[in-house]
């Protein structure tokens, strides 16, 4: 089949990560025991709905959890074997932007409206790289903007964000992201505010940059279309945990967890007529009031008594493909 893609060694290893928020309604376990590996050159998609913990997972990796109320209460984040959770703030600043870069959803809010594109790209470079002169800095900024295919990069340096279209702004954010040649690029819903044709351009660009640099990418998304197009491996999150993980074709061809199965069956398809979509009953759970046992049980078509009292163990359904469900035990 050739389903398994061969990648380099493990670059980022997340083990049993737990991030809780202490609120007046109680403890919200936004991330509750998340583990995954990211290999060199791999693209991992973390899929989930709002509140599933996908964004808190990456903010925890970046150590950007607002505290209080949030706190990383357990686990390890190993980048090339070094535990980021044990670093002090000064050391962590050398990781952020330099070794792991983050691209957020809305380029209008991640760029500062009162500084030029050039200022903002050069700021990132200045912080992490010692360049001999201002001239070298400008040259490097132009080089990065060219890498994300911004036309007339030299003149664009003097533009302000509002002078650029949405697609171009998102490219600038991408340019800042890759400006210090990070090993990992985390993209949190990077294309949701873009139109379809601009989204396609941007995704193609990310793939090209990855081929050029050997970057590892984590895509945070709610859209299985992005996963199908971009990712090698997938982790599906629900209520703060990874419920299923595997190679992208394993997940699409043989989804094992009832939640993944239901999600895939509830998405309309562009390529074929569907008479009636499966609709998942109920709502995503409220995190400060989680039911005991499997949080998907109240919406699950296969749930039985045990599901409601005890969280299921994660089992390997085939090589490299795991899921947490009592049905599979």
């Amino acid at each position, binding site marked *: 089949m050739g389903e398994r893609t061969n990648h380099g060694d493990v670059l980022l290893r997340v083990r049993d990560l737990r991030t809780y928020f202490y609120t007046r309604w109680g403890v919200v376990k936004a991330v509750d025991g998340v583990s995954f590996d990211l290999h060199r050159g791999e693209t991992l998609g973390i899929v989930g709905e709002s509140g599933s913990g996908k964004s808190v997972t990456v903010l925890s990796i970046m150590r950007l959890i607002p505290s209080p109320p949030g706190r990383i209460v357990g686990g390890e984040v190993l980048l090339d074997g070094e535990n980021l959770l044990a670093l002090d703030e000064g050391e962590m600043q050398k990781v952020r932007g330099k070794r792991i870069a983050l691209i957020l959803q809305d380029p209008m809010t991640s760029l500062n409206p009162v500084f030029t594109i050039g200022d903002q790209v050069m700021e990132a470079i200045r912080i992490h790289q010692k360049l001999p002169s201002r001239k070298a800095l400008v040259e490097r900024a132009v080089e990065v903007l060219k890498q994300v295919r911004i036309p007339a990069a030299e003149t664009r340096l003097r533009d302000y964000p509002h002078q650029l279209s949405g697609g171009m702004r998102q490219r600038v954010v991408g340019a800042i992201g890759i400006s210090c040649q990070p090993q990992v690029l985390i993209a949190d819903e990077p294309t949701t505010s873009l139109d379809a044709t601009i989204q396609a351009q941007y995704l193609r660009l990310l793939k090209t940059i990855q081929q050029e640099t050997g970057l590892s990418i984590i895509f945070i998304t709610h859209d299985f279309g992005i996963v199908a197009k971009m990712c090698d491996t997938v982790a599906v999150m629900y209520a703060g945990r990874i419920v299923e993980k595997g190679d992208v074709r394993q997940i699409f061809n043989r989804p094992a967890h009832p939640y993944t199965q239901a999600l895939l069956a*509830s*998405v309309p398809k562009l390529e074929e007529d569907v008479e009636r979509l499966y609709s998942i009953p109920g*709502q995503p759970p409220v995190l400060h009031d989680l039911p005991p046992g499997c949080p998907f049980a109240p919406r699950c078509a296969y749930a039985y008594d045990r599901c409601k009292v005890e969280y299921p163990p994660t089992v390997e359904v085939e090589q490299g493909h795991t899921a947490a469900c009592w049905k599979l035990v």
Partner: protein
Amino acid sequence: MTTNATNGQVLLEARDLKKYFPVGRGLFRRTTLLLKAVDGVSFSIRQGETLGLVGESGCGKTTTAKMVLLLEPPTAGSILFEGQDVLRLRGPERKRYRQSVQAVFQDPWASLNPRMRVGKIIAEPLDINLKLSPRETKERVAKLLQDVGLNPHHANLYPHEFSGGQRQRIAIARALALNPRLIVLDEPVSALDVSIRAQIMNLLKDLQGQYNLSYLLIAHHLATVRYMCHRVAVMYLGRIVEEGETRELFTNPLHPYTKALLSAALPSHPDIQREEIILTGEVPSPLNLPTGCRFHPRCPWAMPHCSQVEPTMREVRPGHRVACHLYGSSA
């Protein structure tokens, strides 16, 4: 979902609708330019039918919907509802049109008043338009809540006590309150969680079957459009460039812009590899429209006369119309 249910009579017809906005430029806004948001759009919607309006941001689809809802007066053109010219209606007849055409918007956090109880939100159109006794109103609200899959006792709660999907159900119940014939759905599921979208889409389909409703669906997500619509019209820069039955349009797109949109859409399986049609450049400003075909600066198949002559809509296959010089030039 295609062929069935499209044999009803024409309910609403838009003829050559235009909406121009004057835009001030320069010191003291002395020079005014015209922003041609909608520039000659014609379509019809039959009873029990869903017409999808697709296109990228700024193509004029929401402005078109606002004109249908009489929220924005057209610069030119006419809207016929059951054969009557809506724009000439006054007084009670205009009010009756407004009752017959309702809307559900994208964001149910913004479209429901947070200070009103759900029962009051749904009863408001009833209170304004019909003289019902409190008991009749209460019964009607309870029935509407049940129609959209909620519970009659939810009438006493406030919007913040509901999840996004439930709020969209409330917005749908309010739209249904006056027994409308047509509902304008402006991105009705794109603000909702993925696992909730199918619930709302299925609910809308069920209500359509139950009440023979017509929908004008505005969406950018093409797979949603394929699932929901009987017919689809593709807009680009204020014009409809292609229109046809859903399955025909998705399996046999003719206009280069439609082809590009479909090729850019995300696949539903990793093994689906689409040949991408790469559009160069960005959408031109509607303040300064290209001459000839407005798509020609980005079109991979542009011919010399595309920049001079604007193509007109022609029926190329039964029910499938396209405005493009590639399919026989028009005089």
